[in-house]
C-alpha cells in the first residue's frame, strides 16, 4: 500500500464526476436524501452546459428551498411566499433577453400562490417554472399541503387527509397544462439515477424553450420529504414510488406541437 501516492490517482484523466461550477461550495442545509438538493444540482448543470450563468436570474420561494441562492451561483431574488411567478413576470418583461426561472414548493405554488401560478401561466410569460411536489409543507414541519395524498398523515391531518373535510389533492400540473400560455408541461422525479437523467433533459428543454418566446415551460418534480413524511430516505423513496407516483404519474403532459 505504501507505494500508492494519492497524487497519482487524483488526475484529470481519472475524473468521473465533477461538481458543476454553477453550484457553490456551501454545504446544503437539506435533509439527507431530499429531492431539493438533486434538483438544484440538475438546474446548475443545465445552466453551466448552456453557458447562460451570466444571463440567468432565479427566484427562490418561501419553503425549504428559500436559501436556493446559497447554492446555485446565479443572481437570485427571494420572493414572498407564493409570489415567485409575479417577480419572474416583471423581471422577464423588463429584461427580455435573460433566462428567468422560478423554483417553488407545492405549498408555495399550489396553495398560497395559486393565483400567481395560474395567471403567469395564462399570460404565457416566457419563463421556466420548477415545481417541487413533495406532498407536504417541509419547511414548517410537515403540515398538509394542497398536494398531500388522500389518507396521508401530516401534522395537521393526524388521522389522515379526509377529502370530505380537507379537499382533494390538487394536480396543479394538469391544471396549468390546460392554459394556452403554457408551452411545455411535464412531470418528473429525481429519486433514481434514470429519473435524474430524464429530469435533466426536461429541465434543459424548459430552459431552451425560453429562447423561442412561446410561453411558460413548467416542470413538476415529484419529490420526497423524509423529515415531513417521518421516514428514513430509503423508505421514503419506496413510499414515493408506491403512493405518490400512482396519483402523480410521470411523463410529459403538454409538448410543443411539431
Amino acid at each position, binding site marked *: 500500500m505504501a507505494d500508492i501516492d494519492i497524487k497519482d490517482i487524483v488526475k484529470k484523466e481519472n475524473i468521473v464526476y465533477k461538481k458543476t461550477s454553477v453550484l457553490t461550495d456551501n454545504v446544503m442545509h437539506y435533509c439527507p436524501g431530499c429531492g431539493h438538493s438533486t434538483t438544484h444540482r440538475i438546474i446548475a448543470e443545465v445552466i453551466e452546459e448552456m453557458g447562460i450563468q451570466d444571463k440567468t436570474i432565479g427566484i427562490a420561494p418561501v419553503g425549504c428551498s428559500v436559501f436556493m*441562492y446559497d447554492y446555485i451561483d446565479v*443572481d*437570485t*431574488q*427571494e*420572493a*414572498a411566499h407564493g409570489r415567485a411567478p409575479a417577480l419572474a413576470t*416583471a423581471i422577464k*418583461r423588463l429584461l427580455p433577453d*435573460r433566462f428567468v426561472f422560478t423554483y417553488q414548493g407545492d405549498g408555495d405554488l399550489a396553495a398560497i400562490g395559486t393565483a400567481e401560478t395560474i395567471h403567469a401561466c395564462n399570460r404565457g410569460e416566457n419563463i421556466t417554472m420548477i415545481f417541487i411536489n413533495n406532498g407536504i409543507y417541509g419547511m414548517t414541519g410537515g403540515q398538509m399541503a394542497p398536494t398531500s395524498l388522500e389518507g396521508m398523515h401530516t401534522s395537521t391531518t393526524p388521522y389522515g387527509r379526509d377529502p370530505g373535510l380537507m379537499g382533494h389533492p390538487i394536480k396543479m400540473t394538469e391544471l396549468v397544462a390546460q392554459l394556452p400560455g403554457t408551452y411545455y408541461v411535464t412531470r418528473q422525479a429525481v429519486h433514481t439515477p434514470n429519473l435524474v437523467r430524464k429530469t435533466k433533459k426536461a429541465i434543459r428543454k424548459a430552459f431552451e424553450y425560453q429562447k423561442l418566446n412561446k410561453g411558460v415551460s413548467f416542470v413538476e418534480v415529484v419529490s420526497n420529504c423524509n423529515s415531513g413524511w417521518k421516514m428514513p430516505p430509503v423508505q421514503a423513496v419506496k413510499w414515493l414510488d408506491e403512493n405518490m407516483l400512482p396519483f402523480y404519474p410521470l411523463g410529459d403532459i403538454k409538448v410543443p406541437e411539431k
Partner: protein
Amino acid sequence: MEEDFVLMKGNEALAEAAIRAGADGYFGYPITPQSEVMEYLTAAKPWERTGMVVLQAESEVSAINMLYGGAGAGKRVMTSSSSPGISLMQEGISYIAGAELPVVVANVVRGGPGLGTIQPSQSDYFQATKGGGHGDYHLLVLAPSSVQEMADFMPLAFDLAFKYRNPVMILSDGAIGQMMEKVKFQPQRPRMKDEELPGWATTGKTPDRERNIITSLDLDPYRQERFNRKLIEKYQKMKEEEVRFETFQCEDAEYLFVAYGTSSRICQKSVQLAREKGIKAGLFRPITLFPFPEKQVGALADQVKGMLSVEMSAGQMVEDVRLATNGKVPVEHYGRMGGVIPTPDEIVEVLIQKFIGG
C-alpha cells in the same frame, strides 16, 4: 420647446409624469378612485414612446410582487392603487423595505375601513407613515395637494427611492386624483440603459462579480439586528435631508392649521376667512409625511397659542403634531370622515370654538 399647460385629472397627470420620469414598468390592478392611472397608460402606449412596460396584474398582491421583481432587477417600477388595494399590498411592501428596493407606490386614498366608500379620505395616514406592514420599517411619504404636484412628485419619488433604496409612497386622495387642473410636465427623462442599472441588481452574474442576491431574510439575530439599525440610520438621514413643507401666513400667526393634501387646500381658504374675522391664523402644510417636519412644527409651538390638525380622518396626523410640539401648545383635531370634505367656514368655526371661545 417650452411645453404648454394642459388640463388633466390628477390620476392622469401622475401617469403621464411616470412615463416622463423614465419609468420602466407600471404594474397595477383597477380600483376606484385611481383607475385612470392604468387607463391613461394603456391608452398612451408608453411601450412605443419609451419602451415602458405596462401590465394589469391579477391582484394587488401580484402587482406589488411584480414591483419587487422589477426593482430587484434595478428598474424604475411603480404601481398605484387605493386604500383596500394598498392594504392587500402590505406584505409585499414590507418585503420591499426589507430587501431595500426602490419602488414608487401611489395611494389615491378613499374612506374606510373595509370597502368603505369611493369618496376621498385621509384615513390611511397611519398605514402610510408608521410602516403599514409587518416589521420595523418606514416608507418615505410625499403628499401632493394639486394636480401639478401629482406630476412633480413622480420623478422626485423615483429619485428618492433610488437615493435611499427604499419604497416611496405618494399619498394622495380621491379628490386630487379625480379633479382637473392645469399642469405643466417636465421634459422626458431617458430610461436607464442596461449599463446604468445599479450594481446590486439581479441582471445576470457576470464573471467579474459575485452573484447578486435580493432577499429580506437573515436568520442570524445579530446580523438581522444590525440590518434593523441600518434601516434606522437611513430613516434618520431622511429626517435630516428630506423634510419638505410649505407655510402660508405663518409669520404673525397666533393660531395654526396643520393640514396636508386636500385638507390643506381648504385650510388656505380658512386662513383667509379667519383673518377677515380678525383672527391671525396660518397654515403649516407638511409635504413629506414621513419624515414629518417635526422640528418646524415644534418651532411654531413657541409662537402660536393653539394648533388645529385638520384631516379627513378620525385623527391620525394629530398624533405627530402632538409629538412634535411635546405639550408646549394645545393641539386639537378636526376631522370629517366617510368621504365628507370639510368646508372652510366650518373649520374656522371649530378653531374659534376650540381655542378662542364665543
